[in-house]
């Protein structure tokens, strides 16, 4: 599903004085797609979003939306935010406290000089979209956080912008509400078919809501791909580590046993692991990522799995976390972490067989 590019960002660089905050970064978002910028705080994701919105002046590069040039450093073009025709949901919601819910949502329509009847109709539609019709006459101070969030979304959609920008819109909600809003927002985005750029530091949110994820770190793009590719085929140690929890394993490449699809490494502890290359190149040493949920434990006595990745190991400790149990095992002189659902009955010091499907052991690009 690749749509025509709607948002195009090329070689974008953003500086604060002498400090380069972002870039250069390039990416495109297809029409009707949801792209998420994911990364730790301070990685430049919000700054990038604000540059697209026109709230931050980039240092150089180009930004085009729907073929229209919004920013071009070389041509000295920088459209002010009010002329870009985009819309945005802010982290703090930014619901104007001196206006009613209706006035908040009507703002973008009033600016566009729509008739009173049309404003009324479209505000009603937008509020219906977020199930807030009953609150039209309330003031913002009378709304809960979740309700303010909905009004912010309605306000952003009301004037039918072609692009919606989201700046960590769910980060101020409690965990439960966040889970629900995630699904609602995703459905809304599908229903409106609007192109959106979404910023978050929450992995689950990114995986649940996006067509495309852009993982950012220290102002640069670490990986750009579908949620599935980001999760299952992390490109760098940063992505492997940030996107879910991974065991990173480094070792010497055994060239004679490796191929284009499979790489075999031997760790300092003498353990041999088979892993998928994901089409990546490798040198004399390589680093692998194995997700904590992709490691299996079995009794020393049980039948071995049908792949070469199995080793004897010893249980160090087992920590009950609720939905999951985190098990630390001693493996070839180092510790590995395993997370498993369901009741676990491992004893400290118990000898077990550890295994991992080679398809779930991923070669990382060495950086």
């Amino acid at each position, binding site marked *: 599903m690749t749509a025509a590019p709607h948002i195009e960002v090329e070689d974008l660089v953003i500086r604060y004085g002498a400090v380069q905050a972002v870039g250069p970064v390039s990416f495109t978002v297809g029409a009707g797609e949801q792209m998420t910028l994911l990364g730790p705080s301070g990685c430049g994701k919000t700054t990038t979003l604000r540059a697209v*919105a*026109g*709230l931050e*002046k980039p240092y150089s590069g180009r930004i085009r939306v729907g073929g229209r040039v919004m920013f071009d450093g070389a041509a000295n073009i920088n*459209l*002010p*935010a*009010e*002329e*870009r*025709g*985009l*819309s*945005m949901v*802010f*982290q*703090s919601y*930014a619901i*104007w*406290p*001196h206006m009613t819910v209706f006035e908040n949502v009507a*703002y*973008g329509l009033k*600016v*566009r000089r729509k008739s009173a009847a049309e404003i009324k109709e479209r505000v009603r539609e937008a509020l219906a979209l977020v199930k807030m019709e009953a609150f039209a006459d309330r*003031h913002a*101070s009378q709304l809960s956080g979740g309700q303010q969030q909905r009004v912010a979304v309605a*306000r952003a959609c009301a*004037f039918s912008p072609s692009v919606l*920008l989201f700046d960590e819109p769910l980060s101020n909600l409690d965990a439960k509400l966040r889970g629900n809003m995630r699904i609602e927002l995703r459905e809304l985005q599908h229903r409106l078919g609007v192109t959106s750029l979404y910023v978050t530091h929450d992995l689950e949110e990114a995986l649940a809501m996006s067509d495309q994820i852009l993982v950012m770190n220290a102002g640069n793009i670490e990986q750009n791909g579908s949620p599935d590719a980001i999760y299952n085929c992390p490109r760098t140690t940063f992505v492997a580590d940030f996107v879910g929890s991974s065991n990173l394993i480094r070792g010497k490449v055994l060239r004679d046993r490796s191929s284009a699809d499979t790489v075999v490494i031997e760790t300092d502890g003498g353990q041999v692991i088979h892993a998928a290359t994901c089409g990546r190149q490798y040198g004399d040493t390589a680093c692998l990522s194995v997700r904590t949920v992709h490691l299996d434990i079995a009794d020393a006595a049980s039948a071995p799995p049908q792949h070469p990745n199995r080793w004897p190991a010893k249980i160090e400790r087992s920590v009950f976390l609720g939905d999951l149990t985190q098990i630390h095992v001693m493996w070839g002189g180092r510790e590995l972490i395993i997370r498993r659902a369901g009741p676990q009955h491992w004893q400290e010091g118990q000898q077990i067989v550890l295994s991992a499907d080679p398809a779930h052991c991923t070669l990382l690009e060495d950086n």
Partner: protein
Amino acid sequence: MQPRERGSAQLIVGGAVALIAAALVLYPVFYLFQAAFDVGDPNVRPPTAYGLDNFLTLANYWEIMVNTLVVASAATVMALVFGFVAAWILTRTNVPMRGALEQLMAVPYYVTPLLGALAWSLLGSPESGFINQLWRAMGAKEALFDISGPLGIAWVMALFEGAVAFVMISAVMKSMDPALEEASQVMGAGRLRTMLRVTLPLVAPGVLGAAVYVFAEMLGSFSAALVLGSPNRFYVLTTAIYQLVSQYPPRMPLAAAMGVSLFVIMFGLVWLYRRLTLNRTYTTISGKAFRPRPMDVGPLRWLLFAVCAVYLFLSVFLPMATLVFASLQRLATALPAMSNFTLEHYTTAFSLNAVRSAMGNSLWLGLWTATIGIVLTGLIAWFIQRSKLPGRHVLEYIVMFPQAVPRLVFAFGMMWAWLVFPIPIYGTLWLLLIAYLTVFLPLGVRTISGVIVQLDRSLEECGEVCGANWFYRMRTITAPLLRPGLIAAWFLIFVASVRELGASILLMGPNSKVLTPAIVESFFSSSSELTAAMALIQTVVVGAAMLLFLVSTRRLSRIES
């Protein structure tokens, strides 16, 4: 769509207010400096020769320098003692009625040194002062004290500046995390040891900052020294400048040199103050306001209550009561006969053309200064805090400039500047309006900035993304959200304008009299009873304005919630 033109609307307005502010501030400062270095023919402008002679001549006035230092130092020490003791009592002990006392501690500031000086001159002048009269009536030969000496002037200044010191020091004490003291106690240190080793070192930078600030204010203060000192030829720098300008023939260059010197010293002190308070390595300020657990002082708390009550009595109740008492007598005396009481001073005050026009002028100026002032300072504050306008930091410095200069000195520069201005506004109310707008720039900008920084930036950015241009955003989002701050600034500027003395006394002309200088004039040339009546009328007007302000803000906040 014309992106270029619309995007630059903000730039044009921003540039315009920056230019206005810079012109208001820098134009008079330039002429102040020009006059200070003018050693040519005094009757020719622009100057025919420049030099340092005026500053060298200042050496002949060493007595005034000593006077200024003595008065300012004594007043600073007293104000700090008042402020520190009151702050400690009200933030650290379980003194009775703490909340009410804390509110009342701000009142001396609103009484103003001028009223205090007028009242204390009635109380403490060596011959006719009420207290000295009573003292003699009890059989004493000599006066109990003399309010017109340096210590008397310092006493009156300290009474009113004590409230400022209190606010500053109690802010420091409140912002200190009580856990720091508790930690010391948990480690086994006693209360005294904790006080000496933890509390004092922690509040020391804040108290030092307050000391520097108060000292700078004292150097520039004018009204108490004018009312109490100048009748018996005791001058400090500010009153000497006024004397040099208003005597015949005036000695403008010398006054300017004095003003520049005072300005440089005060500027240095304000800079020092900012360094002391900004570079605080002890992070007692953590953004949160703590309510420290008050110490239980047992029955001693009634003594501490009495200490606060006495301060409020001396700085508020006694002066006001004295003015009322004096204004109702034909000839003010400490022990009047019943037949001596009269309302004639009030009828005189209201019937005198000069007073009526002065009152009208003051109100007119207050209304316009406040109204134009909030638009101007609101825009300036917004551009400083929110825009990416180049040079906005320079603008901030320029705007805060008048704060570091006594208003009298600033007015001198203005007088000199507008005398040569092609449009003849010298001696009119317009000049006073310009002067007020200039000297109250810092007040307005500070008040409104304080509200702007509390506004979530994204409230405005959201309007931007919604497609609203700058004017529309200002009108529909920024201004309505700032309304409480704008109203507060309006009343602060209004009250300050109606009570302005230092700038007005130099700049008003025969046809543009205003109230406060008229009160001072009356004190020097008519009776102190009439003066007291006039001062009280002004107080009532200002008080009514403040009451209106309180009521209107209460109502607004009730509507909003």
